[in-house]
């Protein structure tokens, strides 16, 4: 019994990490129409930045924040120098971002080597928390709380601020938004950097669960894609629910049907693509 509950906690915490990864991917694709295949690299690079800062003796949370800022900068450079020139050319964007992800993977291999680098949760959160006779891994619960807080913050930013309204206006009618005086180009850069930052942050806080290793990017990117296809692009709620679904399928699937793990992950995606291509919660514009 408690084993299943534990699996549930693991599912929810993986879902939380997946949300942080895929929220940015979903917004960037939903709002800017850029299929950003470097998003998994942002996650991995964030984790490497973080682990390096930890090895220098930094505080865990500070390391995660600084890594996020670093990844935002990397994302900003990529968006401004490369993707900006390829506006509207989705195939070129796919190829460029895929190529970049291979280059980033190579660079990481060169700098951080081929072995996995495990890193610890912050002191004080490493143990387990007994709740009603079941012991929960404390850190995973913290990850869930962080994901919920970031989800709420992103939602407030998009739906309740003037900047969020400007972002949505740029999506509704880019030309008219510009004529209205909204600097759509700058706003889209902000969205891209924000999405990259959250992915980089997720890489660090996911480190104590997943560690960081060459190939982490390629493990995470397909999960983000499935989440976004399930939930619908450009929808935070969709990303959140898609992440939870995948979190559960991943964990329970591996225990119940270990030899079918990929089928269990990808089958829902195929079904959604066939029967509800806008995803469960795709953006609806009247």
């Amino acid at each position, binding site marked *: 019994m408690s084993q299943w509950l534990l699996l549930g906690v693991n599912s929810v915490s993986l879902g939380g990490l997946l949300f942080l990864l895929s929220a940015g991917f979903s917004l960037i694709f939903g709002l800017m129409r850029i299929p950003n295949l470097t998003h998994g690299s942002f996650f991995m690079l964030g984790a490497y930045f973080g682990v390096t800062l930890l090895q220098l003796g930094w505080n865990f949370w500070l390391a995660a924040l600084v890594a996020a800022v670093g990844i935002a900068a990397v994302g900003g450079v990529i968006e401004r120098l490369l993707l900006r020139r390829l506006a509207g050319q989705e195939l070129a964007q796919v190829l460029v971002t895929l190529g970049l992800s291979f280059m980033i993977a190579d660079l990481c291999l060169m700098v951080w080597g081929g072995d996995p680098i495990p890193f610890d949760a912050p002191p004080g959160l490493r143990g387990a928390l007994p709740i009603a006779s079941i012991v929960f891994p404390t850190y995973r619960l913290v990850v869930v709380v962080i994901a919920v807080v970031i989800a709420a913050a992103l939602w407030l930013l998009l739906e309740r601020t003037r900047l969020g*309204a400007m972002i*949505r*206006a740029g999506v509704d*009618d880019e030309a008219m938004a*510009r*004529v209205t*005086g909204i600097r759509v180009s700058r706003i889209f850069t902000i969205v891209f950097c924000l999405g990259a930052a959250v992915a980089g942050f997720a890489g660090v806080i996911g480190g104590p669960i997943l560690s960081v290793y060459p190939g982490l990017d390629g493990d995470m990117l397909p999960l983000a894609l499935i989440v976004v296809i399930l939930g619908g692009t450009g929808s935070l709620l969709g990303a959140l629910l898609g992440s939870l679904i995948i979190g559960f399928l991943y964990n329970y699937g591996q225990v119940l049907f270990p030899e079918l793990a990929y089928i269990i992950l990808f089958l829902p995606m195929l079904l959604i693509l066939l029967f509800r291509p806008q995803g469960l919660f795709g953006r*609806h*514009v009247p």
Partner: protein
Amino acid sequence: MADDALSLAGIDAFYGDSHVLQGVSLSLAEGHVLGLLGRNGAGKTTCMNVAVGLLPPRAGRVSLFGEKVSGRPPEAIAMRGLALVPQGRRIFRSLSVRENLTVAARKPVAGARHPWTLDAVFAAFPRLAERQRQTAGYLSGGEQQMLAIGRALMSNPRVLLMDEPSEGLAPQIVAEVMSTIRRLKEQGLSILLVEQNVKLVFDLADDIVILNSGRVVVSNTAGELRAGRIDLHQHLGVF
């Protein structure tokens, strides 16, 4: 002589290979309403697109109060005081009514006589105030037109472009839109008004320009044209 509020001088504009505006020149005097007429496809909307910076002209110059703005991006031209109520209204459909207005808000230039704020727009269009939390895509056509006008005013423009504001609206709403334009004119706003409805334009405009196949064929004061020495039907088709 003071600079015109808005002037297009010798504009050549293309969509791909098609030469849509051929040496178009027109000027809107400060505080005036300039009516821009022409058949379907004459190039009226294209003039608007050139003025706001969406379609950079291949030759010619657009100036706002004497300052050259052609070649600048749309958002920069908007900052200099040009606002558009576009054909088809083009409100931000997924935003609320209130958000449509707030995203457009800009500080008025120093000395503006009638600074537009959210409250001022709501006072001018009470129906928008009632529906401020609604998603704009669900408004009626007339309400969307009010919202498009309100959105343009929120930027506290010095020059307002209006592209067929009466299109597809019930007569009663058209009358309301027209009285709004008259009020804006009384407040000293310079307005370039594109209309199919010739009578409306002659009611409001000080000056008239008629386009035909991308060229200016008539440019005169409304008074001279009312006096009837020019055959409008020849240029505008049947009305």
